[in-house]
């Protein structure tokens, strides 16, 4: 089996969410003295990107996405240990929450899964989270980005409260903020002073990558 065939098998293991096969291939790559970073970038990263694309167009769904993410996580842990100096560094820390008064968390669960799949360190505060709790936890977690979700027109004002509270506490420049949810628009994000708005989970990940700039 040449290198490209091997890489194709890695990609296929990720797309099929086969963590046992993905892990076995990671170990085999090390036994064959392959460059672990190249295997990560050309195999596992390409695989999870394809999974993300299939998720975006509805050819693959949340459970499969999570299985694929799990396969990548386990395999890249094995390969990362072989990389001197930790070449595959963390992408950044993201805190996400559904705002106070809002109990909708399905959309947030998708964002959470996509962020983890893309290598972010994510703290999920859950739903119905008071504004001050978001700030306190962001400080403890040393978050780079605070993402909030609101599904109701009556609760989206909490995203505005967060912006005001961050400014009042002198913390606004410390964090990048991103907002989303069914009634939320780019105009709303601009109005309240958020750094970014995401129409859907996939766009959310891309916007966070841009915000962090890593």
């Amino acid at each position: 089996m040449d290198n490209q065939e091997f890489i194709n098998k890695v990609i296929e293991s990720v797309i099929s969410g086969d963590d046992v096969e993905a892990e076995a291939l990671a170990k085999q790559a090390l036994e064959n003295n392959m460059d672990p970073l190249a295997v990560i970038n050309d195999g596992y990263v390409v695989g999870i990107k394809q999974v993300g694309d299939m998720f975006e167009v509805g050819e693959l769904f949340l459970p499969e996405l999570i299985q694929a993410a799990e396969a990548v996580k386990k395999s890249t842990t094995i390969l990362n240990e072989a990389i001197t100096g930790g070449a595959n560094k963390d992408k950044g820390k993201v805190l996400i929450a559904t705002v106070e008064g809002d109990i909708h968390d399905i959309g947030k669960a998708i964002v959470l899964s996509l962020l983890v799949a893309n290598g972010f360190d994510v703290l999920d505060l859950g739903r119905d989270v008071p504004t001050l709790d978001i700030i306190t936890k962001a400080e403890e977690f040393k978050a780079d980005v605070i993402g909030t979700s609101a599904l109701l027109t009556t609760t989206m004002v909490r995203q505005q409260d967060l912006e005001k509270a961050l400014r009042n506490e002198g913390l606004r420049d410390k964090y990048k903020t991103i907002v989303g949810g069914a009634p939320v628009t780019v105009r709303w994000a601009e109005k309240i002073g958020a750094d970014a708005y995401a129409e859907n989970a996939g766009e959310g990940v891309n916007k966070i990558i841009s915000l962090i700039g890593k």
Partner: protein
Amino acid sequence: MVVTRMGDGSFITLSKDEVRRDIEEGVADAVKRGKIEPLGADEIDHLVDICCRPQKFVSVEKGKELILSYDSGSLKITRLGIPIGMPQIMQLYERAFAADSLELAYVHYSFKPIKSIVPEEQYAVAETSLVTTAPLLYGAMPNLPLYTKPDGPCDNAAELLPAGKIDQARQAQEEAVEYAIKDMVFVSSGMYEAGADGIDFDTTGAAGDAEFYATLKATEKLREKYPDMAIEIGMAGEFVLGFHGQLEYDGVRLAGLYPHKQVKLAEKAGASVFGAVVNTNSSRSFPWNLGRAITFCKACVEAADIPVHANVGMGVGAVPLVMTPPIDCVSRTSAAMAEVGKLDGL
């Protein structure tokens, strides 16, 4: 130049060529996602004409009017702070708002909380049916998450899935489905027997494929129990979210279905009317959203053997995502749904 809007309601100005380009791109997006046929050149011309008319309010030719119905109607008048009872609200819809069918609803608008006040709601249904002549539906949402922790007895899939507990998440959703079916059948039966002509399952599938499955099964049971009952299945979005991912109905995987396939399962289950929904993208223009919504809805109508009523409201059916949907967009979408989409109702 044409004054139109973005999907978030803000005004923009486009040339006629830009309007056409956006419509064509919206059509192409629907074709790609839904794997459906595009609109024809004459239909796109028609949409361009509808978008470019200078009038604030546009309408349809005589004879092309559609059935008009309103979901959760009784809640919307109550929200305005007007002290008025349900029968009078329904009379307003029938006699002032030109509604062809009426929907009576409770403020919590979900089957689970309604099951404990069924006798009170039955009274409102019976009273309303005595003072109105239009078909009277009782409406509520399946709202599957109300059966999950912390609001219900089942584990919460939205917490289990991100933790990688996929089997447990699927099992929790399957348990919630059984509770939801029971409540939907119980409440719907009560309202029908109190005098309602039928039931509207509104915002179906908001919690994904398991919720759509529960609604189809409840419809199936009600159809068997009441052969003449009117049952409308109105969707929450254009796409059935694969939150479970493996559920099938009549041998068809529910996750990932678009309106033209959703309607076939609704028919199979026994629905009388299907409420198609196409989401508005707030970052794209109204012409883009219109082209996309009409393409999806037209494909749905062509596939359907039951009437299709498109949802044309805040953030759906090309209507911008604003609290008070602007009449310029609502009227244009409505005209396009009638003349190009060939829908049966709105």
